[in-house]
């Protein structure tokens, strides 16, 4: 199933890669204009502090700063998370809704194996997409005067990938528990967005700051890895959460009746 899931992902992922590449190139193409442009820097400074905090706009005219705002503060993690959520919901709940699961489980494979292999395919797709992002920014960036440390870039992309994989695994687990593809997408998306908002708003609202720990966005990307590199403990929290969701998916799918 791993192979077949990957095979079926093939077309989708090529589309996403192209879209991602296009987005990156557009962002990169604009950078030289902004880079070390004094008047632009002044413009950013004029933004209200709250806005700057919310969208994580600081040192916009430097490489990391620009990328952080334009690419990583919202767009890239969002794009990859959407991809992961769509795949996650499709792999399990999608099969059940389309009724192909009956024929699949006529074969001598355990339900747990089905869930696990599908999750592996999900993880592979997510990491491939993230790798494309990293390579594009790292290799093509310098052509547009945008230089980044590979270590920091990897740290940021890893955080992005893990956050997206969390969303995808959530969709997979919800699908495993309920067999409903639509709600799997909706709830996973809502949870992901909520975590993003919690992390972003926590920068502005002191009361929320103490709940920051509940947001996996915070753990994956909150420490500004693009500038500061790897935060292993925080990444570990995200990885653990993913593991817990996967375990739940394995258990829940095993225990219930499949769609009649």
């Amino acid at each position, binding site marked *: *199933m791993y*192979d077949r899931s990957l095979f079926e992902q093939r077309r989708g992922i090529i589309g996403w890669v192209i879209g991602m590449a296009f987005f990156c190139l557009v962002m990169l193409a604009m950078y030289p204009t902004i880079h070390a442009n004094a008047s632009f820097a002044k413009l950013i400074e004029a933004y209200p502090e709250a806005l700057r905090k919310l969208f994580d706009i600081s040192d916009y005219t430097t490489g990391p700063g620009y990328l952080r705002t334009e690419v990583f503060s919202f767009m890239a993690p969002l794009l990859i998370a959407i991809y992961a959520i769509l795949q996650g919901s499709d792999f399990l709940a999608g099969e059940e809704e389309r009724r*192909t699961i*009956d*024929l699949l489980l006529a*074969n*001598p*494979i*355990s339900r747990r194996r089905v869930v696990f292999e599908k999750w592996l395919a999900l993880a592979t797709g997510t990491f491939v997409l993230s790798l494309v992002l990293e390579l594009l920014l790292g290799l093509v960036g310098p052509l547009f005067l945008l230089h980044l440390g590979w270590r920091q870039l990897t740290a940021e992309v890893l955080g992005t990938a893990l956050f997206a994989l969390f969303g995808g695994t959530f969709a997979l687990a919800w699908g495993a528990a309920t067999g409903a593809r639509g709600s799997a997408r909706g709830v996973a998306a809502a949870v992901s967005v909520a975590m993003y908002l919690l992390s972003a708003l926590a920068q502005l609202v002191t009361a929320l700051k103490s709940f920051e720990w509940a947001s996996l966005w915070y753990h994956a990307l909150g420490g500004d890895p693009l500038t500061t590199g790897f935060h292993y403990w925080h990444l570990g929290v995200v990885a653990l959460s993913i593991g817990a969701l996967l375990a739940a998916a394995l258990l829940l799918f095993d225990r219930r*009746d499949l769609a009649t």
Partner: protein
Amino acid sequence: MERVVSADVKESVAISLDHVTKIYRGGGGIHELSLDINVGEVFGFLGPNGAGKTTTIRLILDLIRPSAGRISVFGLDARADSVAIRRRLGYLPGELALYERLSARQILTHFAHLRGGLDWSKVQHYVDAFDLDVDRPVRSLSRGNRQKVGLVAAMMGDPEFLVLDEPTSGLDPLVQRRVQEEVRRAAREGRTVLLSSHVLSEVGEMADRVGLIRDGRLIAIEAVAQLQQRSAHLVEARFREPTDFEVFIALPGVTSHSVDGRTLHLEVAGDLNPIVALLARHVLDDLSIREPTLEELFMRFYGAPSE
């Protein structure tokens, strides 16, 4: 519940259902269903839609779990040893759904791989038997051809136990015959077949014994031969000239009759030859001889249909 123990009961039991109950909140399901299917036998589930045939089959496949009772296949528990059972079993779902974007070859290869690697020659036998074009994407296949893919997937590798839910659905008569041949061949080779249908003649062609299911209960198990004897044919003949019908009504095997002007309705049990011979001596405007529908069969022999 009537249980007929046939004279030549085989030694081992392929599948045993012991007071199996499945309760659904919305109603339906099955109740206290007990049944033994012997190794090498072809057993048919017969019943109207919604009777519980598919529910029973899905319970055997461990796709759903029973509310009560035990199910064992080859002596193994249907839930605990589900994977081991499915290794020896081939299943055709009643509502067949395939991976639309893949070709039949890709799907069959994928399943063969999941079964631990299968020699393609074993698949090819059935591909040829059903005349299936394996290289076209499934979404371009007609309903009948899709059903063929499902049949090949179930039968490839000659599993010990075949579970076929509505196997001839959507197939033209020629392919239906091939299916019947393959089922009989499986039985000759000592393999066990469980099939379900709501078409009496289809089950009659293939099965040794038939279990009649209605409203989630197994109301009777009959050897097919007995069933066929019991089910009467309905003869309707419209005569050109006014005719004395008494001679028809008096024929042996005529269990009931009604007259409507020049049209004679008869129920004939058993041999049709006497009535056909007699009809042939008259000029007829119209003639139809049909077997009863499942509903009529149930009504006649097993009491009134459900509310």
